[in-house]
């Protein structure tokens, strides 16, 4: 028994421009966002994530396909007739109104009584921790405060779905990290479906229930953060999220639930299969730097470079002339790295840590 999706896109295509200059921003995208979930659209600029958001909000119309809100098609409805609200990247606070007037705007447009409106405004102000700021103007607020007003303004309308278009990108790092936690909490408490757009993969991983990784108008992979990180299906996803080593390997054969691959005639890996592969086939393996373990005194490779990054040290290990591996090793308690340039090391990778990519 499936619950109705809060938002669903079915075969949505969006083309901008015409003829030779036509840009296919979205290419037959189908995705369903569940109710009460924190759903993230993640991808580099130009991948179509913002376009999809704008289609849901109603600022653009699809060239083909349909958009459903709670099961009902809405492509013919203008934004002011859709029960979704948007938090814009630039906040778009009305400069000639006070904070309270901004927050009350949506309620006012829908004819809510004055007492009810002021009640909701107070509630929203305390929700975003800006009690007492009602009389100020947007120009008098800091970036973080403006962002919270934008949030309050949208939430005041109890929308079915809240759309957030890279709302944290204008904030500096510490504030951003703080806001991530607050947004996540807010979503849990209010239970409103969030559709969140970002290009920052750390943000996506920390906040989302599910992530849709997008590139060039298509969804590359859809799944929970762990799924996306541990089991990327293709090169793009493996590359976009976190760091990855890509290795050309040849298949030796199946070994239980793994596939035995050989790299550069010297390294053996037991890779988790993306599909069945015949012996002798050439495949690409993706291995995360932190999954590779180094053993002192081994002969597999030599340390070519070390880079200290605080919690860890990144090592560049030279295996053969053309093969270098990035390895991340957590530093010891005293902060020191274990290896130095020139050390010879052995390499160990747990079974299944290497992923075979379909491509």
């Amino acid at each position: 028994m499936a619950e109705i999706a809060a938002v669903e896109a079915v075969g949505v295509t969006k083309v901008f421009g015409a003829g030779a200059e036509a840009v296919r921003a979205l290419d037959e995208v189908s995705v369903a966002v569940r109710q009460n979930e924190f759903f993230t659209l993640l991808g580099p600029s130009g991948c179509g994530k913002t376009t999809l958001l704008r289609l849901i909000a109603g600022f653009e119309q699809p060239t083909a396909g349909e958009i459903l809100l709670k099961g009902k098609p809405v492509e013919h409805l203008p934004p002011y007739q859709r029960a979704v609200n948007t938090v814009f990247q630039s906040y778009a606070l009305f400069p000639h109104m006070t904070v309270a007037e901004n927050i009350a705007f949506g309620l006012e447009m829908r004819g809510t009584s004055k007492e009810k409106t002021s009640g909701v405004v107070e509630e929203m102000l305390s929700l975003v921790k800006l009690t007492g700021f009602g009389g100020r103007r947007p120009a008098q607020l800091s970036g973080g405060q403006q962002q919270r007003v934008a949030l309050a303004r949208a939430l005041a309308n109890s929308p079915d779905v809240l759309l957030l278009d890279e709302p944290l990108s204008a904030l500096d790092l510490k504030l951003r990290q703080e806001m991530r936690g607050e947004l996540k909490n807010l979503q849990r408490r209010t239970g409103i479906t969030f559709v969140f757009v970002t290009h920052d993969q750390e943000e996506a991983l920390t906040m989302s229930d599910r992530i849709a990784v997008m590139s060039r108008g298509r969804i590359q992979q859809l799944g929970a953060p762990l799924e996306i990180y541990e089991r990327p299906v293709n090169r793009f996803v493996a590359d976009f999220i976190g760091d990855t080593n890509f290795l050309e390997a040849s298949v030796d054969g199946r070994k239980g639930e793994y596939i035995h691959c050989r790299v550069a005639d010297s390294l053996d890996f037991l890779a988790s299969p993306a599909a069945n592969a015949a012996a002798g086939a050439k495949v690409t393996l993706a291995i995360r730097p932190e999954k590779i373990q180094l053993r002192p005194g081994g002969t597999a490779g030599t340390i070519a470079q070390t880079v200290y990054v605080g919690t860890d040290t990144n090592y560049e290990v030279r295996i053969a002339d053309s093969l270098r591996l990035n390895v991340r090793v957590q530093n010891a308690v005293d902060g020191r790295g274990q290896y130095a340039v020139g050390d010879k090391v052995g390499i160990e990778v747990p079974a299944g840590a290497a992923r075979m990519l379909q491509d």
Partner: protein
Amino acid sequence: MAEGSLTATAAAPGVAAGSRRPRRALDLRYQPGFGTVAICCVLLLYAPILVLTVFSFNGGSSVTRWGGFGLGWYAKALQDEGFHDAALTTLKISITATIVSTLVATAAALATTRTRRWPGQTATFIVINLPLMVPEIVTAVASLSFFALLASVAHLNFGLGNLMLVHTVFCIPFAYMPIRARLEDMDLTLEQAAADLYATPWQTFKRVTLPLLMPGITAGAALAFIVSFDDFTITQLVAGPGQMTLPLFIWNRTRVPLTPEINAMSTILLGVSVIFVTVSFLIARRRRD
């Protein structure tokens, strides 16, 4: 203050930020002689009108020979019936032309700015700016011909309406430009946000677009008024018998021996312009804060 702007002060070593600008030789913005030319130009621009103004307070009766201070000429001018009538007529024409042209220009600006291309957009833009591209004398004689034809063939004469119509035509582009400029500066996402918050297009216009557009509309209206108020060429040729505006009135007074009364009347007209420019500058300054 934007980096790289023409007046960003280069921090010379040892000079505290915000203190005196570096010496001439080091000041990259300095060009020799330009300051002198600038000052001379301003002096030259103001010299004749300053003379005009000063001599309006002339106690004596010569236009350029001083006979002591006196406000007599202002009294004479302000009591002149003809002057009153001309002022009234001018106000009637200019206020009407301003109101109509500003309304119409606002609508046109909303239609032609910040929008995806629509068929006829370029043509509309050209038509709206057309009055600016035609020399005044040509507009004047064309309008004269038009109204003469109307009068002789269709026996239609709108009286003062003739002048109001002609003024409106050339006021439209003057009102249009500042409104369009202000519209282009406005953040498009604000209106999207309003729509996102359940405001219908009309509500969006009333609550968001219009308040934010007001400075542009005011500037456009002020410009339209001043242009209509000051107009001479077109008015002189199109005006029928008995239709006298202030500029025409002053022109008539130059045909008779000059007295400082003409200085007084001219200064009053200049005063109106100065007031308008000052007020619009003050409004612009307040907006920027």
